């Protein structure tokens, strides 16, 4: 029994999810941190929803949405000829929604604590909004980015319910480590479950320690 296959699949899933979340989560976090729009609480609630909803509820709706008859799923079938559900791509899409708050919230907090005077100074020194974001806001919010990256990576890695609902249990495609562990326990193969669980515990510990060390280093600057 290969314990590294599911682990590798989980890492790939977490990597793609985190990369995509960095791209779409940053503008959302920035908008939330700067806006005074009345819409803000609603958008915040939608972003935070995956934290409070049971993964099964989220997975259920995603299954319908991403399925061949669903709004996104049918469009995807037209575009590529294959279904989103029970595929790796579908898992990435689902994970992006599932882990969205874990990327957005730390970044939003970092952006909100950024003193406005830095931005105003940058503008008066000739920087456009985008320029000021990349040269001033982003470097001064590194802690937020690191927390967002680590948390969404780790959270995707530990995902179970949504994967089970949307991805099922296809080796090499959707059989991520949490599913594999569940499988082993179901079939009373405790030794294999132990090995995989220990691997995950060790990995999570190393990742979190790295994050806290990095955060401390950036904090001291």
């Amino acid at each position: 029994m290969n314990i590294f296959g599911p682990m590798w699949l989980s890492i790939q899933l977490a990597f793609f999810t985190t990369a995509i979340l960095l791209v779409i989560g940053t503008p959302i976090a920035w908008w939330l941190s700067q806006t005074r729009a009345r819409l803000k609480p609603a958008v915040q609630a939608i972003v935070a929803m995956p934290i409070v909803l049971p993964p099964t509820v989220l997975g259920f709706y995603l299954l319908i949405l991403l399925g061949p008859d669903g709004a996104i799923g049918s469009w995807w079938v037209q575009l590529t000829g294959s279904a989103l559900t029970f595929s790796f791509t579908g898992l990435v899409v689902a994970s992006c929604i599932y882990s969205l708050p874990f990327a957005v919230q730390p970044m939003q907090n970092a952006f909100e604590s950024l003193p406005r005077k830095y931005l105003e100074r940058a503008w008066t020194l000739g920087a456009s909004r985008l320029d000021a974001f990349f040269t001033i806001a982003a470097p001064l919010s590194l802690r937020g980015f690191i927390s967002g990256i680590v948390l969404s990576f780790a959270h995707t890695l530990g995902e179970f319910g949504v994967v089970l609902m949307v991805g099922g249990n296809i080796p090499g495609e959707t059989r991520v480590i949490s599913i594999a562990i569940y499988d082993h326990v179901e079939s009373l193969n405790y030794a294999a479950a132990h090995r995989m669980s220990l691997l995950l515990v060790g990995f999570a510990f190393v990742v979190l320690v790295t994050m806290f060390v990095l955060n401390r280093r950036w904090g001291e600057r």
Partner: protein
Amino acid sequence: MIRLRHKLRKENFALDVDVEVPDTGITGIFGESGSGKTTLLRCIAGLEQGDGLPVHKRNVGYVFQEPGLFPHLSVRGNIEYGARRARTHRVESVPVVEMLGIGNLLDRKPDSLSGGEAQRVAIAAALLRSPDLVLMDEPLASLDRKRKDELLPYFDRLHDELSVPVVYVSHDIEEISRLCDHLVLLEGGKVAASGNLFDVVSRVDMPVLSGRNAGVVLWATPMDHEDGLTRFDFGDGNIWVPGTFEKRGNPLRLRIAASDVSIARDRPTSSTILNILRATIDEVHAVNTATALVRLGVGNQSLLAQVTNRSVSRLELRPGDQVFAQIKSVTVRH
């Protein structure tokens, strides 16, 4: 001339300014807190919402009350930030760095600078953007007296050596009197007066220029030294000031506060006051029920005296009368 024309409505404040200021030298904006000084500067820079061109396209340098240097960049990185984004490079880096005395700070990080050093770096950054106009919002207000005195000479140099026009907001009339050439008075978001500094400060009818803020500025040249005093000549008169000021032939600015000037009908013969000048009353204006401001002509210059209304009626002071002005103290711009 530069035309400043800005309108802005906020919850309980409205700014409505339309005024022309010279395109050289330093223009002071003076007014009580809440009169809209900072709001006016922010409107000029485009930092308040609602009028047109985005901030980064306006080509104005802004020096904020707090230096606000970028903490992740070195001093060099901070002053180059604006220079790299400047459309023209009319202002050279080396003379500005030298003028502000920050050459030995370039490799330091902002958090290791004192408040005065940080503000000098912020000024350099704003100047190296090669702006068409520099806006300064109480750049000395966040500093204590000692740091302020350290920084003021740099502003004097800025005033003497810089060709870019500056709009300088302050609530400190001494700062304004020392640095500015032109003065705009703001009251409740509107321009109450605008003109040459020397003319505006000698007005008696401006509520914001009463009490501690009342006083004139005049040019006078140090001519003689005696008993640790310096004789300053101006127009038709002279004033003795404690201290030894170099006789370089060029006039210096003196500020004489209205509260330091009193009026006598006859020349006092036994007084500790050194400077007693023959003067003519130009205007008497009651500021409130108790006090009045009197503008006195001394040759071609003006003095202000703050006196009580009781004294005005007891001495029967009227425009055209010949009196004696007694000057208790004078502030000199070194």
